[in-house]
């Protein structure tokens, strides 16, 4: 029992000096159960934390929503679509007589987000993309892998790469054009912040989604520099993102969330655990401040908190303690959807009730698999 709990429990009754019971008043006395750790967290089912979120930005079935962000954001778009929300898609997969499998379409960046931009890990990367859309002209670089060319700002959406630099630029131009049209329709933009660490071109300031050389391109220490964005920078980028979004469509609202997925690797020089904590703390603080500064226009949704809830005792994490298990995704999305009135809250996906043995299937297959180039960093571990 912590101090607040003790205070709440002692608020009534207390024994007076003449041995009568008298009420005592203090700021915690009338707070709801969600305000206390014992009842709000320790005593609550971590798979059904429905009291954790009261939406300030509403989404209905007809709301035109766009999604973007780090790997975890793929789950959000998928769940919204499954619940019948009109998730926009600027670049839908072509409908062939003999369709490609969902897995292959996702490998080509189709159906992951509201456009084929792949994972957007940092606020700066999101800002760059919006600036590029507004400008209408590609500002990317061409990275080579053997004889194949890759778009440095979305190197993973073409698993085989492209034929040459002209194809990269032509497709990027079409991509930007499609995204501009999509954003002009968008009413709510859901953005999942993933990382503060990134690599940039020192000369142009272009921030990449993944370090040069991991998927394609080559790392040049004189040209490529490491960035670890600070809270003020992330916040400023978020402000600029909102301004740009509302330039595409006045009144567009944002829902920001922070991915609970830990860093696969850090280049900060810190231990990866402290680097992860630093990164997530920065993102959480920036997102919270950003939402608070724009009531009604920006909402913060606590994906991070639901998955990392200590009461879940890590059960929402897959083996490896980094990826989120389907039960964790379900816990997050059930809160989100129920809060928006989009679906009845499903039965609690309590980690205690989840299968006790995890054979690792979640990591290498199934409906919930996400495309995540950041994981490739681990493959380069020495």
């Amino acid at each position, binding site marked *: 029992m912590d101090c607040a709990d003790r205070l709440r429990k002692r608020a009534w009754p207390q024994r007076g000096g003449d041995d009568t019971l008298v009420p005592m008043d203090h700021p915690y006395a009338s707070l709801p159960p969600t305000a206390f750790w014992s009842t709000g967290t320790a005593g609550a089912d971590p798979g059904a934390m429905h009291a954790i979120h009261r939406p300030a930005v509403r989404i209905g079935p007809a709301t035109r929503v766009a999604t973007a962000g780090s790997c975890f954001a793929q789950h959000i778009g998928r769940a919204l679509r499954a619940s019948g929300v009109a998730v926009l898609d600027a*670049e839908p997969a*072509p*409908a*062939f*007589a*003999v*369709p*490609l499998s969902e897995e*292959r379409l996702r490998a*080509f960046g189709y159906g992951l987000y509201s456009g084929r931009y792949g994972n957007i890990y940092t606020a700066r990367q999101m800002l760059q993309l919006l600036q590029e859309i507004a400008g209408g002209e590609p500002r990317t670089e061409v990275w080579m892998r053997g004889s194949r060319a890759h778009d440095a700002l979305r190197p993973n959406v*073409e*698993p*085989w*790469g*492209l*034929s040459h630099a*002209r*194809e990269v630029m*032509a*497709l990027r131009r*079409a991509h930007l054009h499609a995204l501009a049209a999509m954003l002009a329709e968008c009413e709510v933009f859901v953005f999942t912040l993933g990382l503060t660490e990134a690599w940039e071109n020192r000369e142009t300031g272009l921030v990449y989604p993944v370090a040069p050389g991991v998927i394609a391109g080559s790392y040049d220490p004189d040209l490529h520099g490491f960035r670890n964005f600070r809270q003020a920078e992330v916040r400023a980028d978020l402000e600029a993102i909102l301004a740009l979004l509302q330039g595409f469509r006045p009144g567009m609202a944002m829902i920001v969330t922070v991915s609970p997925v830990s860093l696969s690797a850090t280049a900060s020089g810190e231990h990866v655990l402290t680097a992860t904590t630093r990164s997530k703390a920065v993102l959480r603080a920036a997102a919270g401040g950003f939402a608070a500064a724009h009531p009604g226009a920006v909402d913060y949704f606590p994906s991070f908190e639901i998955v990392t809830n200590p009461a879940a005792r890590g059960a929402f994490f897959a083996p490896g303690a980094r990826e989120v298990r389907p039960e964790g995704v379900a816990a997050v999305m059930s809160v989100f959807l129920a809060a928006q009135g989009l679906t009845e809250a499903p039965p609690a996906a309590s980690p205690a009730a989840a299968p006790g043995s995890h054979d690792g299937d979640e990591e290498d297959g199934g409906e919930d698999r996400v495309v995540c180039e950041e994981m490739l960093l681990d493959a380069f571990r020495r």
Partner: protein
Amino acid sequence: MSRLLILGNSHVAALKSAHGAEPGRWPGLDIAFAGAAGGALDGLRRRGGVLEATDPEAVEQLTALNGSARFALDGVDAVVITGCELSMFRAVSVLRRVIWPDCVDSPGPGQVLTSRAFVREALVTALQSTLAARLAREIGGDGAVPVIVAAQPNPCWLGEDAVQLAAFLRARRLGYATRLARIFTEAAAAALAPAAAFLPQPDETLRGPLFTRPKYSQGSLRLTRDMAKPHEGDDYLHANAAYGALVLDQLATLAGTAPRR
């Protein structure tokens, strides 16, 4: 002497009629033919050293056209599949939905600009579903019997205003016919691998990358027991015996036996 079993739908008629017209042209080849409409061939299953139909309708059709619904594979050096949906029409069908930047400046109605790699993957997937690819996997999937798939002939050139070939003509008009033909060849080979090898249409039968010269189409025969009935005069899908002879020449060359011409 190389022993071949040549299977096919209506397109096997070109090869069969060529062989019937010039039986001495391929002294190094010992050829057996088996043809039937697509549905019947789909019912063929390999059981040990025999390829046989499994349902009564297929048995009836194969027997009517070939005298048997069972084809021995023991001693066969290669099975050749011809036609059976592995055609340029599949490529054109995919390109109705997607196109890559080297082909056009801007996509047409209902068409999405995407990467060549994606178009290729979509085309491979489409070709893997063809009867030719299914048969190739059934017969050669375990590598026990070499399988060659000879392309279904491209449509016959009908002129610039052939509405039934509008997509082919569009590719020609916009200058990407060669790219289309190249991606089809690549995708066909990929779709058949590793069960079978792809044999492209003979060069001399082509009018440009996408069309068959009329002289290799006119007078094509229907697949019947007696091989005596020609297609309608406006048929543009089937090739004739002259075409079939060139395919048999290709096969003879692959077998290392020069045809007598």
